[in-house]
């Protein structure tokens, strides 16, 4: 359904996404993890060309066969929300503070489904109920809701036009642990019911593991490891994935008791030659510092961009291609 080929985005001269490719089937869920600034949001937003005008995007984004990167704006606008919607990071500010929730919920319905305002209201009320909020509160303003409720409204809004794809950019990051659990459970249920495909972004691996079938780990604008969620967590192949997994210790695991693990060094600012991770990599070699390191298969249905990863068999996935 969605096929991304060699997507590259740069802001002015600074590259933010440096060649990302993946495909996503209908109803499947892809989790994207990585630390701050590695290009997750940029990648996600570029799919619908929602980036500011300063961003230059190249590559291909084939959505149901149509390249969204070259589509006319009017066509693109038709796709937006009706076929692919977005749940943004921080619903506090992703909802317009001066318009009622009801207005904002029915806005895309009116726009895309060409319904009467009354029908749109009705649908909005249904949506509110489906996320566990009383429909009377459609007349309320965003600030009258708590953070968790706002995020639920955002999710309801994303489902408004029954899209085929939902892009969720850190939907629970700003929330409290308990609320986060509430929202994630809700999201998982709704996605299951609606059958939409989901791209879910987070820097918290544990959150992704609950919801997603497949995980992609990004570092320095690239996908450095990719594969089934469970496998990636229990048996990370890329050293960065390993460090990331280690940052969320399992309570009761004696290995991490009084023994926090982390990576020395800092996230990259400017990316030079070679593997972006090489400067922090505990076991980087010379090859890592000079040559490009591309994704290579690292197990059943998984791949990693590390020279140390043993290539299981001779089956080579075409360069940089992954399938979810």
């Amino acid at each position, binding site marked *: 359904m969605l096929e991304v080929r060699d997507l590259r985005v740069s802001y002015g001269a600074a590259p933010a996404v440096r060649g990302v490719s993946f495909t996503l089937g209908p109803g499947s869920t892809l989790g994207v993890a990585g630390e701050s600034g590695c290009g997750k949001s940029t990648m996600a937003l570029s799919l619908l*060309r929602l980036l500011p*005008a300063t961003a230059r995007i190249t590559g291909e984004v084939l959505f149901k066969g149509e390249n969204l990167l070259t589509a*006319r*704006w*009017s066509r693109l606008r038709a796709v937006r929300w009706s076929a692919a919607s977005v749940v943004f990071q921080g619903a506090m500010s992703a909802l317009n503070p001066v318009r009622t929730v009801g207005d904002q919920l029915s806005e895309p319905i009116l726009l895309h489904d060409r319904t009467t305002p009354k029908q749109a209201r009705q649908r909005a009320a249904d949506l509110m109920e489906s996320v566990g909020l009383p429909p009377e509160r459609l007349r309320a303003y965003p600030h009258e809701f708590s953070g968790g409720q706002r995020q639920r409204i955002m999710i309801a809004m994303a489902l408004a036009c029954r899209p085929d794809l939902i892009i969720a950019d850190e939907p629970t990051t700003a929330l409290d642990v308990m609320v986060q659990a509430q929202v994630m459970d809700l999201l998982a249920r709704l996605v299951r019911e609606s059958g939409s495909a989901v791209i879910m972004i987070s820097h918290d691996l544990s959150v992704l593991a609950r919801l997603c079938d497949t995980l992609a780990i990004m570092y320095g604008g690239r996908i450095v490891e990719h594969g089934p969620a469970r496998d990636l967590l229990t048996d990370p192949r890329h050293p960065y994935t390993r460090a990331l997994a280690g940052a969320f210790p399992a309570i009761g695991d004696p290995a991490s008791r009084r023994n926090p693990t982390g990576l020395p060094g800092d996230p990259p600012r400017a990316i030079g030659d070679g593997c972006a991770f090489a400067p922090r990599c505990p076991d980087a070699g010379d090859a890592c510092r000079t040559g490009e390191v591309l994704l290579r298969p690292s197990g059943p249905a998984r791949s990693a961009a590390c020279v140390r990863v043993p290539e299981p068999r001779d089956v080579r996935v075409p360069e940089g291609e992954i399938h979810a």
Partner: protein
Amino acid sequence: ASASAGTVGAEPAAAPATTLRAAMEGSGVDTLNPFLAFFNGALDVFGLVYPALNSLDPSGAPGPYLATAWEPSADKLTWTFTIREGLTWSDGKPITAEDAAWTLNLIRTDAVAGTANGSLVSNFAEVSAPSPTTLVIRTKAPQASVPYTSIPTTGIPIVPKHVWEPLAKNLKDAKNDVFPLVGYGPWTLTEYKHEQYARFSANKKFVLGAPGFDHLVLQSFKSGDAAVAALRSGQIDYKAGVNPTQFAALQADPAIAAVQTVGNGWMGLEINHNARTRSGKKIGTGHPALGDPALRRAIALATDKQTLVTKVIDGVGQLGHGYLPPAWPQWFWKPAEVTPYDPAQARKVLDEAGYTKGADGVRIDPKSGRPLAFRFGIHSDDSADAAISGYVVGWMKEIGIKLTIQSLSMSALNSDLAKGDWDLLMDAWTTGPDPTYLLGIQSCGTLPKDDGTGGNTDSFFCDAAYDELFKKQLTTFDQAERAEVIGQMQDILYKANVNQIYYYANGLDVARKDTVTGLTLGTPDASGVYPSQTAFWSYLKATPPQVTKKAEKSTNLWLYVVIALVIVAGGAVIVWRRRTTGDDRE
């Protein structure tokens, strides 16, 4: 005077009504209450709408108006005015001597009523009207200027007793704003918007001749340039009193008649020479050296009045000498020996008087040991003051006198003046045909009392011989003789050098040639003219030109054009935007 369709008034619509439009006198109208008003704009209006006992003839002497004849008695203490019969106020009630007597008595006896004009009747002992046509004024002392007491504009306007009597109790709050005003004069005030305009219709039955226009409008402009622009664009027909720069510019305009009338005022310098009270007590912080006549003469010698005339008023005026301005030729006086512009002589005078130069080139007063450094007060709102001060400072510097300019508001200046807290001051006066008041300012009686009140002096001048002559001129009923006495007074002043008259600026009047003729515009030679709108003559005699322009098309045409343009442009913008936002990118 656009002959626009006269929708105002109830005249028959046979001939289109004509309107003369003039700029209101610059100061504007302070109040329409004739007992309280001081501003020239208001006095102008009263001159047009209220009668007076006398008018002014072209020589500046009293002429007939309500009174047809006026005679002093043998003892010079009683004046008898014969009042015209058959005149009526604009509300139809007859005008009688009783109206005049009531008005003058009210001013004489009531402090509030005397606010504006009390001084004119302060010498009156009694005013009575033995018959409707006879008015008798008894004065305390002989007073030659009685026929000047009630003249249009500068004198006391006579008001209808039947209208004002009920108001007399609370005169202070009488606004006099019921239109048309009940009065009598060449015009009737029909409408008045404070600080905007006054609108009059002609009194076609006016006893001294019917006005040439049907309506008169005086429009208020605070900026002279706005008024001039209005004149150029035909919004108004006449403006009195433009400044020399505007005058020069308008002279070049063929559509406009720019005429000078001889000046009725002077611009000059006051010198604080020994400020003191009536009892002779010294007051104030004036520089003691200014009491020295030699120093004052040196200042006069070092002043190049001709340059001031040329540079400051662009040559449109006369060099100043005597205390009374040339507009009133009967009193005009020229010194036998004119103090020349002679800085060398000035230096010599100073040297001889012992003012030696100090290290910084400023002379030292040998008596007080203080340098000749003076404060020089100027009116902050008067551009002529500022211009003149630049020259004076320069000239004084050349003879070793240092002046520091202090620019003060009128009110601050006046408050300093009475206290004697000043050295040199720019000053200006205008006067009507009766010089008594202006001459009186220089008499000893105007010095402040010991408690600081009661002062009405300019330079603290006080001279026994002068005071003697002042009394004499009041009792001299023959004009030639009286002029002789007044000439002697001016001579004393001239020689004292306490108020040095720089120049008499000409009145500069401008009028449109195409819309008005017959305005009494003067010529600068002073003979037989009414300076600007003296009395009501100018507006009375003005007529529309024979060949009036075709009535203007709708003056609003272009407005519609502009509105249309705006709409079209707005529409275009909207259409353009609709087009371009079809597939807008982000």
